[in-house]
């Protein structure tokens, strides 16, 4: 479990974050490094100044001019805030303002106290209908897929999210019960799964490996153990996995 030790082993290079594994994460990490560095500098300078003023003996001179004490430093910080906002909104816009490309791989994430299910649409590329009345994990239908719907015949439901490397993924998120938070630290990605709402996020995994999926929105007594794995593999391995799973569904 080398990756498990990552937050402690290489804290400085990645600013304590586990190594990035998503295409958009490069820009997110660059932003994080700059912004954390800039604000840490502000923190250090202000606190050093505070300590110095605390120890400083009394000076006769009157109050500093408002320009030196107030307007110039404030102006500098406003410039910093504007730069931070502009660069970050740019990254946000590029990542979220448009949906995935039509060719993206589509997977539905279904959150449920306290499990993640990953619903692959199969060859017909259409998700089968599901109904809450049909949810029955013991009978192998944890998300309530309707067997009479023709689109659900070839659908796969997995408890592990397996994805091919370097291909854009269009995740469709929903929840059957309460609000959950879909969080994959290595993918620099978090989005709530809200009952009654279908939301989409898209990203491209760029590094093979197994990454933890965590729940980031308190959802009940099992919140902390509501974890799953995302496995990013080569396209060959992915197709093989899909074929084995499809065969199992066919039986």
């Amino acid at each position: 479990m080398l990756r498990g030790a990552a937050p402690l082993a290489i804290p400085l290079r990645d600013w304590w974050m586990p190594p990035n594994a998503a295409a958009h994460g490069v820009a997110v990490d660059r932003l994080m490094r700059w912004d954390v560095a800039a604000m840490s500098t502000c923190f250090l300078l202000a606190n050093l100044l505070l300590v110095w003023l605390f120890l400083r003996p009394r000076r006769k001179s009157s109050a500093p001019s408002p320009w030196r004490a107030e307007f110039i430093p404030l102006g500098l910080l406003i410039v910093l805030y504007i730069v931070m906002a502009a660069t970050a909104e740019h990254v946000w816009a590029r990542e979220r303002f448009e949906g995935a490309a039509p060719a993206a791989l589509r997977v539905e994430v279904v959150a449920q106290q306290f499990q993640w299910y990953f619903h692959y649409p199969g060859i017909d590329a259409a998700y089968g209908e599901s109904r809450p009345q049909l949810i029955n994990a013991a009978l192998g239908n944890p998300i309530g897929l309707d067997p009479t719907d023709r689109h659900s015949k070839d659908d796969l439901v997995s408890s592990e999210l397996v994805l091919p490397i370097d291909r854009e993924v269009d995740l469709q998120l929903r929840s059957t019960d309460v609000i959950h938070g879909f969080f994959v630290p290595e993918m620099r990605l978090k989005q709530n799964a809200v009952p009654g709402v279908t939301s989409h996020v898209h990203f491209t995994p760029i590094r093979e490996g197994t990454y933890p999926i965590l729940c980031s929105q308190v959802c009940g007594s099992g919140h902390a153990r509501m974890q799953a794995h995302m496995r990013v593999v080569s396209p060959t391995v992915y197709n093989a996995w899909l074929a084995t799973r499809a065969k199992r569904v066919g039986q």
Partner: protein
Amino acid sequence: MNDLSAGGRARPTLLKRIFTTDDRALGIRYLLLSLVAVIVGTLLSLAMRVQLASPGIRWPLHGPMLPEEYLSLVTMHGTLMVFFVLTTAPQSGFANLVLPQQIGAHRMALPWLNGLGFWIVVLALVVLLSAFLLPAGGPISGWTSYPPYSAVASAGPGQGGGMDCWLISIGLFCLGSWFNAVNVLVTVLTERARGMTLGRMPLTVWSWFVSAILILLAFTVLFAAIVLLFCDRHFGTAFFIPQGDWISGQVVGHGDGSPLLWLHLFWFFGHPEVYIAILPGMGLVSGLIANFSRRPVVGYRMMAAATVLIGLLGFVVWGHHMFVSGMNPYAGTAFGLTTMAIAVPSTAEVFSWLGTLWGGGLRRTTPLLFALGFLSLFIAGGVTGPILALPALDQYLHNTFFVVAHFHLIMAMAGAFSIFAGIYYWFPLMTGRLMSERLGRWHFWLSLIAAYGTFFPMHLEGLAGRPRHYAQVTGSTSSLASLLPMERGVTWAALLLGAAQLLFLFNLIWSTRRGRPAGDNPWQATTLEWRPVHAPVTVGRGPYEYHSGSSEEDFIPQWETASQQE
């Protein structure tokens, strides 16, 4: 306490003393109520820290802590601290204690409403704590109580009776807070002494005034949300429960509600709430820094304007709690920008404080130490604000310990330090005595070191991706298990932070009985609460007329008229 508060008036009957309408007595009672809440809330958080440092530890007379028990500790800790400590102590406690005197009023404008408000808040606290006595325990959905989790009793243990207690308690709290806020508003608007123009009000009064407006608007929305949620739970409505919602094996969603509606309503209250908690502290610190540096506040008008501006902008930033909630990403951009905008008046206040301190030569009393501690922690918590305001970064940091570190530094720690500063500073108004400086200094330095020790490492845990509300970090994917040593360090620091408060408690009790008599105006302050005689007054000058340079009399109090000096 009552003898003091009665101060010279005829000795009232027992019933009148219990249901007093005297604002100073009420101020002290609010502070004592907050003290009870903060002791319980702190013990809950220490239990959480011990659990996180040693998962699976067997508690005496109890056994291992279940995850739902941990979550109920989180929920009750947050609720107690946010409502009954950080809102109650500065806005109800200090305002009752000091506000009428600071504006030269005889008393609060609406004493009866004021007294009623206090008992409603007491009732709210009792209802909240009684949730612990229920067999299923307290509510476990966090202080934000997101539905459908909070709307359906079967969603988890404690979400039945415990959640009802929470809703009733917070509903009552809204009511009590309104009464207090109306009282503050009317008092400031109608009861000021002659000459006490808006431009001569101390910055504390500006803060209480703005906070009172925020309470009226924000708590009203929260109250509405609570009523709707209560109807969802008991009267079959579906404001927040979506169609087909399926919980614990049953379809519970028969209407067409939206959980996101609650998020909007809650955070429309929730964000102004953090300013309600911190604005009075900011006003107080401005005055303390001026007093103990013997200099006028740099940019008094700008500070008053910044207070109002923070209050206004506080109402248009709520969406920054919802970047990843499923809200439209364009809205995320808008809320990110408004949030960056609110950093500007906050930064301006910081520069004003630093500018006032600029000439050095401070009187290093305990109230000043806590005011400077507030400033340090306010900066520490403030610098992460613009980071979390950016949706691109918040999509990683949201609901991690980075956020926990941020709001504990800026709201909890800075807030607590300003409350401590206020108690050390205004203690003579309550008891006629000063608190021990020696104990106060120990209390300050230990608290400051322990506060940074507790909350600084949480930033690193957050960057490592550690989510909130986890009863233990050793989950099934084991990505967080490597954080366990750091969790232990944080727990030791938190225990030290808790232990340091024993010094404060001891100081409080000891100084009430044995503290040095304070005499008139022990801090050589300029504002009216330190006036030796409480007779009608005409105010002829601003609140912070300190003049460094001249040797003996380096200040002119607001109650002194031009003819009286020299």
